[in-house]
């Protein structure tokens, strides 16, 4: 590999990892209860905002006060880089950058979790016993009530395509979506969608024709939608949208009826984890009924555990959307996402499609 291409890869990584949780370095610490036997430290590196992770850590620490818990909130990029530099620093890694987490596990950096909970964990939500999907977050559209009033309900990708193909002036420049070139998440979704349906490229062309705005993060898109700059948002992270739009009745969150991507945060225990016993306890808790219950109740992240029902769970979402839900497959296909040439190929196609009908 030449220095040039290495540099290139590095740059791409930076761009791609600039995910929605790209915030500053933050920490949460819980001291161990003095006198507790088997006291141990537990270091968790996660790409999860503190307010989302806090309920979970609170609950875990209540049940296991013997662990001196240290949660470090990192961006998905920082988390990955930091791990490669110091593979024996963290006991648990939680990140939404699925291809990167998958690659770590594929390369043998993770150790398996052999517990009853791990064995019961649904096969689609884990890889071997090393990589566990712990959340269930649909990718959604957000539609302003005014659009619905004017053009009717937008329930699916087909509805969105039809809406865009009206070529109505009122929508020009007021649709927003991820720029796959600068957002890792957007790129991942683009790859997945392009594999799901060839009509995706028509949608990209329609978006281009509507002069859709391109954003780097879900937060950015939500901001524009709340402010009213955008009327339609496409491919937003559902968990963030629900959180932010709770007090925005004019913005409707749509989980598409034809197909809806579902992203998941992946947790793994590094092979060189300094406190493997503590790591096992935490991961087991995270995929256990209790931990998943906390996720369902106190966060918007969505719980996977099959015995959990009700709002905030995968089961509830499945009942609502059924077969349309398309969780991103935890498999070697994710490795293709990380292929440099693949990325270049996809982005050039994307750009080509996006600009195809813009010549006018």
């Amino acid at each position, binding site marked *: *590999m*030449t220095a040039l291409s290495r540099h290139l890869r590095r740059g791409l990584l930076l761009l791609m990892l600039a995910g929605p949780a790209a915030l500053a370095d933050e920490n949460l610490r819980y001291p161990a209860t003095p006198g507790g036997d088997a006291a141990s430290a537990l270091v968790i590196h996660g790409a999860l905002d503190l307010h989302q992770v806090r309920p979970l850590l609170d609950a875990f620490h209540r049940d296991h006060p013997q662990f001196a818990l240290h949660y470090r909130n990192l961006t998905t990029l920082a988390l990955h880089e930091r791990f490669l530099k110091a593979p024996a620093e963290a006991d648990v890694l939680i990140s939404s950058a699925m291809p990167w987490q998958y*690659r770590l596990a*594929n*390369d*043998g950096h993770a150790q398996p979790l052999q517990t009853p909970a791990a064995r019961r964990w649904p096969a689609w939500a884990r*890889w*071997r016993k090393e990589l566990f999907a712990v959340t269930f977050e649909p990718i959604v559209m957000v539609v302003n009530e005014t659009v619905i009033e004017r053009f009717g309900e937008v329930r699916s990708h087909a509805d969105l395509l039809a809406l865009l193909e009206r070529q109505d002036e009122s929508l020009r420049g007021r649709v927003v979506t991820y720029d796959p070139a600068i957002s890792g998440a957007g790129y991942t979704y683009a*790859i997945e969608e392009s*594999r799901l349906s060839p009509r995706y490229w028509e949608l990209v062309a329609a978006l281009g024709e509507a002069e859709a705005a391109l954003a780097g993060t879900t937060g950015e898109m939500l901001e524009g939608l709340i402010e009213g700059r955008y009327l339609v948002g496409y491919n937003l992270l559902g968990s963030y949208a629900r959180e932010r739009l709770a007090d925005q009745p004019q913005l409707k969150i749509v989980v598409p009826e034809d197909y809806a991507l579902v992203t998941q945060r992946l947790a793994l225990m590094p092979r060189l984890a300094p406190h493997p016993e503590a790591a096992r306890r935490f991961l087991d808790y995270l995929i256990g009924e209790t931990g998943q219950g906390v996720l369902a109740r106190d966060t918007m992240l969505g719980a996977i555990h099959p015995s959990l029902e009700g709002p905030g769970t995968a089961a509830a979402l499945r009942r609502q959307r059924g077969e349309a839900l398309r969780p991103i*497959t935890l*498999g*070697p*296909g*994710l*490795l*293709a*996402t*990380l*292929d*440099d*040439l*693949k990325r270049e*190929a996809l982005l050039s196609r994307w750009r080509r499609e996006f600009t195809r009908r813009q010549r006018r």
Partner: protein
Amino acid sequence: MKRGDSLSRRLLAWLLLPLLVLGSLMLLQAWFEARRTADRAFDRLLEAASLAIAEQVQWQDDRLWLDLPPAALEMLATDAEERVFYSLVDRRGRMITGNAELPGDDREALSDDDTLLYRDVAWQGLSLRQGVRRTRLEEWQLREPFEVRVAHSREGRDALAGELWRANLAMILAMAALAIVALLLAIRTALAPLTRLRRAIRSRDPRTLAPLELRLPRELAELRDTVNELLARMRRVRANQERFIGDASHQLRTPLAGLSARAELALRQEDPARWREALVAMQATSSRTARLAMQLLSLTRLANPEYRPERAPLSLNAIAREAVREHWTACHRAGVDLGVATPSADVEIPGIDWQLAEALGNLIDNARRYGARHVTIRVGEQPPSLAVEDDGPGIPAARRTLMLRPFHRDRDDLEGSGLGLAIVDGIARTHGARLTLSEGPDDHGLRVALSFPDASPMNPPGDAP
């Protein structure tokens, strides 16, 4: 019977051992075969994946270009969730893209065209199966060679190999179980005649000596015939014994009857002179009867084949002298001159002293009874021998062997029991000595000699009969 020394156990061990070795070899072979089969099956995945990737390789912007199909990678992962690695390498060995710098394969390709080489590799501590596809771009002008390397971990292969092997294992074990059952049955059947023979022998009346009538396979038939021969010998021995007992009781009854009759006759008479006459006759008869009883006892003991007393080194000179001391007075009183002739050097043989003394006693007694006047005990040196010579009437050569039979009496023998020489013969046989009857010195009289086997230290006498 010792536990370890059973015929069926021996057979079983010698048949089972090769069976076990064979079974182990089969299991080993089955394991390698299962692995080969699993590898063949899974190598198809490497082939398909590498082909799917190679088909997407193009020349673009003056370099190799790959639009990696995710499906190609997904092909490599089965239900066993293998770890998957790939790389695209150009003609100079530089990695164009991939998720791992997989090692190349140095083996020479069979042809310049599209080739695929499989092998097991270790990469960063993982043991992988790798396929390297060497091919080239098929464009009009450009025929750029390149390599697609794909690899995955072995979990799926191992699981399949294990499954195939276990299926084989079950079959081999079932076969082994069948073989062992067959073996046990075969051994039991083969040894059944032995059991029959044992039952036949055990259920016999211990007194019967009739031959065994039993149909048996050849090997055992030989054993049965040997046993029958032994039984036949025992029948002959027993017939002999029965005849002997009959003779003995007859021999004892006769003088007792005579005694009784003579006493009765004497009691009818009043003349003391007659009484005295009767008493003299009775005294002679009773002493002869007592002697007869004693000889019978000796003969019985000598005839017992189980009786094998220890032999000790003996001086023949001393035995001869002792015999003279013992019998001289009696001989002298009967007017017989008893003497001894010994060599100056002592002659030693291994023997039983009391038996030899008894033999000499019998011979001296015989000589005296049959009218000898001079009796000499002679000790010979080469070979060691004991002989009793007399100047009596002797025995014609033709009848000498008859003399050895119990109760055979020669001439007008009124006094003898006919047992003396039979006893001497028995003693001679116990000592492995030869008994010879011949003329005495000067061609008259009788010479009875016991010639002992030469007792040189190099050739100690065994327990020869």
